[in-house]
């Protein structure tokens, strides 16, 4: 029996627990694998620990996942880059397990190690590994192999490069859809490492295979790779090879493929350049905006601003704007909502005249939408349109929309509009705000739902920040303080909360003269909850007000509360008193 010296107990335990029955202990040990490796030394790590881990491949997935991750950063512990290859075998086994997340992590770690390996080691160890996985019996190995080609390829000699391309092409036609999906996902990464002549021939033919796959899920991923692949090609090649494919995809039978195109089209335009975009992709995009599947229209509508930005204003007005008009009255609320969230961004693109003439009516109709999300989305982006045409043109329609949202029966809608009030205030200006919105802000403080009252208190603070203490003194503070006499203690509590938020903004003078007396008064409340909240508020006021005020007003009040019959009140009062003392000390 070996005698383990005192400082080694923990490490010995750690090692033993690599094989503990309890998965949590095994997991912990694996997470400290670097510590174990350092304790064993580099040589024994290579000769014992790594082979030991290689055999550990039927453990629980959680443990395997952790192992895959740790091994990715293990090069220093095996003796540096020249020994990096010893890490490959355990990761190779992990690349074949059934659980996707373990395989993905193992591939990620292999890539990380491969990127650091010396060229001759890559040829000697890494490339054979990729080939073994690609020829694996089970699809899991083949799936993993696809993600390693971009590391293996650059350092391969010419003959091997040809072979690797052939293997990848084989993977693109594998029997198992899972393998083809992985090949499609990784094609862009692999293509980036392939030389230009082969790119046009080999890679394009693989891409071609994938775009004609009979599994929708494979074609989807091929579309996703389009943009990345397109950027590798010269614009004229891109036009020749990709444009027809993209145009085809935009009319694919499967809505999911068209949905992908709608999401990617903007990037594809960048790859093909402005001229083909105008002639080919604008019509494709217009078709997608008018697609009969709502999901596709949602995706297309969400990209409308980005797309317009790469067109010139005339084209946008001529082709896109009519579709936007249609979408604003789309039968699907989700389409309208997606449109509302981006349409304001079109204003700077189109310029003032077109915005007033064309976009404004759309804004107004969306502001009257029956679906609150649509209205909210418009309001949330108000600042963008304000920069172009000014708020006045909108303000008349804005008010009814805001009032309606403010009184919506769903509290989540009310909450959303409250969050936008400071933005609205800054855009609309003091004058407008005073007239129309001030009352609403006070009304929310008396909402039935706690989250709304809480947000309303916060809102009051943000308004004070926006318009300054003087304005707040006139328009907010008196109204808020009035409400401290509300018969319901929950509302009184909201006011205390608002006071504690307002105090730092208002500054010492106003706090002492206006806010503090109200708080002190509330300490006589009959409800203990109010009283201990008073203690909390007072504690928060200590740093704001003058030392003398603390001693003269706050402390006596706290002392009184600290003798309250209620245990909670005493607790918070004592806590606040301690802060008093600390301030005194410093």
């Amino acid at each position: 029996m070996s005698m383990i010296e005192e400082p080694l107990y923990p490490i010995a335990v750690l090692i033993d627990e690599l094989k503990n029955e309890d998965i949590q202990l095994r997991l912990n040990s694996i997470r400290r694998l670097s510590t174990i490796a350092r304790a064993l030394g580099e040589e024994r790590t290579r000769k014992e620990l790594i082979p030991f881990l290689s055999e550990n491949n039927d453990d629980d997935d959680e443990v395997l996942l952790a192992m895959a991750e740790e091994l990715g950063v293990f090069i220093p512990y095996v003796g540096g880059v020249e020994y990096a290859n010893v890490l490959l075998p355990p990761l190779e086994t992990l690349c074949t397990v059934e659980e996707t997340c373990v395989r993905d992590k193992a591939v990620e770690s292999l890539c990380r190690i491969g990127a650091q390996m010396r060229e001759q080691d890559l040829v000697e160890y890494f490339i054979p590994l990729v080939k073994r996985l690609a020829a694996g019996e089970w699809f899991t190995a083949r799936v993993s192999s696809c993600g390693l080609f971009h590391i293996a390829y650059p350092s391969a000699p010419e003959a091997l490069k040809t072979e690797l391309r052939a293997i990848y092409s084989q993977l693109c036609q594998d029997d198992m859809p899972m393998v083809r999906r992985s090949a499609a996902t990784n094609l862009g990464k692999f293509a980036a490492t392939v030389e230009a002549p082969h790119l046009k021939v080999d890679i394009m033919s693989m891409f071609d295979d994938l775009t004609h796959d009979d599994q929708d899920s494979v074609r989807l991923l091929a579309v996703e790779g389009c943009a990345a692949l397109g950027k590798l090609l010269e614009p004229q090649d891109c036009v020749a090879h990709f444009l027809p494919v993209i145009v085809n995809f935009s009319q694919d039978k499967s809505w999911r493929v068209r949905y992908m195109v709608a999401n990617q089209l903007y990037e594809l335009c960048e790859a093909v350049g402005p001229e083909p975009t105008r002639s080919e992709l604008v019509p494709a995009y217009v078709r997608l905006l008018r697609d009969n599947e709502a999901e596709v229209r949602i995706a297309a509508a969400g990209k409308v601003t980005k797309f317009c930005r790469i067109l010139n204003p005339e084209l946008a007005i001529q082709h896109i704007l009519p579709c936007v008009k249609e979408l604003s009255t789309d039968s699907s609320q989700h389409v309208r909502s997606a449109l509302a969230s981006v349409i304001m961004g079109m204003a700077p693109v189109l310029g003032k005249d077109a915005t007033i003439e064309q976009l404004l009516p759309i804004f107004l109709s969306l502001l009257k939408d029956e679906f609150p999300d649509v209205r909210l989305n418009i309001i949330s982006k108000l600042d963008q349109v304000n920069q172009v045409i000014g708020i006045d043109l909108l303000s008349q329609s804005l008010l009814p929309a805001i009032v309606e949202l403010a009184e919506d029966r769903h509290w989540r809608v009310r909450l959303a509009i409250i969050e936008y009030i400071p933005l609205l205030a800054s855009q609309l200006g003091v004058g407008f705000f005073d007239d129309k919105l001030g009352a609403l802000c006070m009304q929310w403080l008396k909402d039935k739902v706690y989250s709304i009252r809480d947000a309303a208190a916060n809102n009051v603070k943000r308004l004070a920040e926006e318009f300054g203490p003087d304005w707040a003194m006139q328009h907010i503070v008196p109204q808020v303080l009035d409400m401290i006499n509300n018969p319901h203690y929950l509302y009184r509590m909201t006011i205390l909360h608002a006071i504690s938020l307002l105090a730092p903004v208002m500054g010492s003078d106003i706090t002492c003269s206006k806010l503090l007396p109200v708080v002190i008064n509330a300490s006589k409340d009959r409800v203990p909850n109010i009283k201990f909240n008073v203690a909390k508020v007072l504690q928060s006021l200590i740093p704001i007000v003058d030392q003398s005020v603390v001693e003269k007003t706050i402390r006596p009040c706290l002392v009184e509360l600290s003798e309250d019959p209620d245990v909670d009140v005493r607790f918070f009062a004592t806590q606040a008193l301690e802060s008093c003392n600390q301030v005194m000390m410093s």
Partner: protein
Amino acid sequence: MNGGDEVAAAPAGPPQSLDWKFSQVFGERTAGEEVQEVDIISAIEFDKTGDHLATGDRGGRVVLFERTDTKDHGVPRRDLERMEYPIGRHPEFRYKTEFQSHEPEFDYLKSLEIEEKINKIRWCQTANGALFLLSTNDKTIKFWKVQEKKVKKISDMNLDPSKAVGNGSIASSSTPKHCLANGGSPDRSYNYLGNDFSFPPGGLPSLRLPVVTSQETNLVARCRRVYAHAHDYHINSVSNNSDGETFISADDLRINLWNLEISNQSFNIVDVKPANMEDLTEVITSAEFHPTHCNTLAYSSSKGSIRVIDLRQSALCDSHAKLFEEPEAPGSRSFFTEIIASISDIKFARDGRYILSRDYMTLKLWDINMDSGPVATFQVHEYLRPKLCDLYENDSIFDKFECCLSGDGLRVATGSYSNLFRVFGCAPGSTEATTLEASKNPMRRQVQTPSRPSRSLSSITRVVRRGAENPGVDANGNAFDFTTKLLHLAWHPTENSIACAAANSLYMYYA
């Protein structure tokens, strides 16, 4: 019922009638043994290769069987996928393992008891020798992985608990903090191991790695994912997509689409729930993906129609691509017409060209390219037509019989009462129609003459009689017993072999 007289002569053109023989039985009852409710089999499914068979029961258990007559060890997986088994030996199975898939639950929000009964089992893609399957009860679908695990024996630890006691404070039970160093009190023990703790460059020679020895393996079933809370009504079907990453689950009113790897969201693709539940006239009874087209799925309804939908058309497939239903014969309408039209099960043929459906009276075979009517109709229960009233009263009319097709698509089979099941030839010109009994002597029914009115209660007769003491006898002298119904059966994917469930017993036949 005319099963008895058609077997003998089959014309030369269509395939010969099969001569069915008993192969195996699992869970056979001894005479007089009462069947436990929880043991009754409620689902049967072969995997794609036919090397494995799974059954589910009302007690929420899943039992796996594996084929023993083919030695596939060492054959690469890819070849295995394409290999045709030489015909000659019939498939034989042995018990492999079993696990508790579902437990009874209680939904407190809806005050609803959720039974553990397994409604459906579906096999998923095998990987690395581990088996994967989906099992579902009324509400929750589970994804299972069944894998051989080595039984490990660990030796050569750094700290031997028995010796360590002598060392005083290492691992004795009186000072557990060291034992638990890794999990229990890491802060204290790892103080040594901060980055400032320097290990000698050569490492610490006294430390060693545990040695793991393992000889035996045992099968472990682990639940990998649970797909819950997506169905308001009872799940009747789950079906895998050919893309290997998605599956559907169907309840009475909705069909949801899942990704196997994502258990917290699903997409509703079919919703037949009317705005007002009083307008409800039709429910979904069964749903299945096309075996090769990833975007096609079919579902059947209680009104006797089959709808094929194309997932490419739109995200919400409320409108079908194709509708298959047989127009009702004029004048024949009765109170039972709608009830017996309800389809209890549909299955795609292996090539995806045909769909087989089972309603209460018949089996129908539909060509997916012909929506005017079925290409063939097989009478299964015609002899029960005069008894519909009784069947309605004892609820038997709502029994849900499953159906299956042979791998070559030439024959179809379905279950019936009295533990009988019927096999029909569906190749053009075939008149094959065989009735078999789920017992050790499946053809007994056919040699039985009307002059022998009822069975002798010999050891091979294991019909449990409950309720009606005197089972009815039809025109041909065949007794039928509503309490012993053969609802679940499955056809081996590559060979003429059928597995069927009679209460708690699993009978296997071959031809």
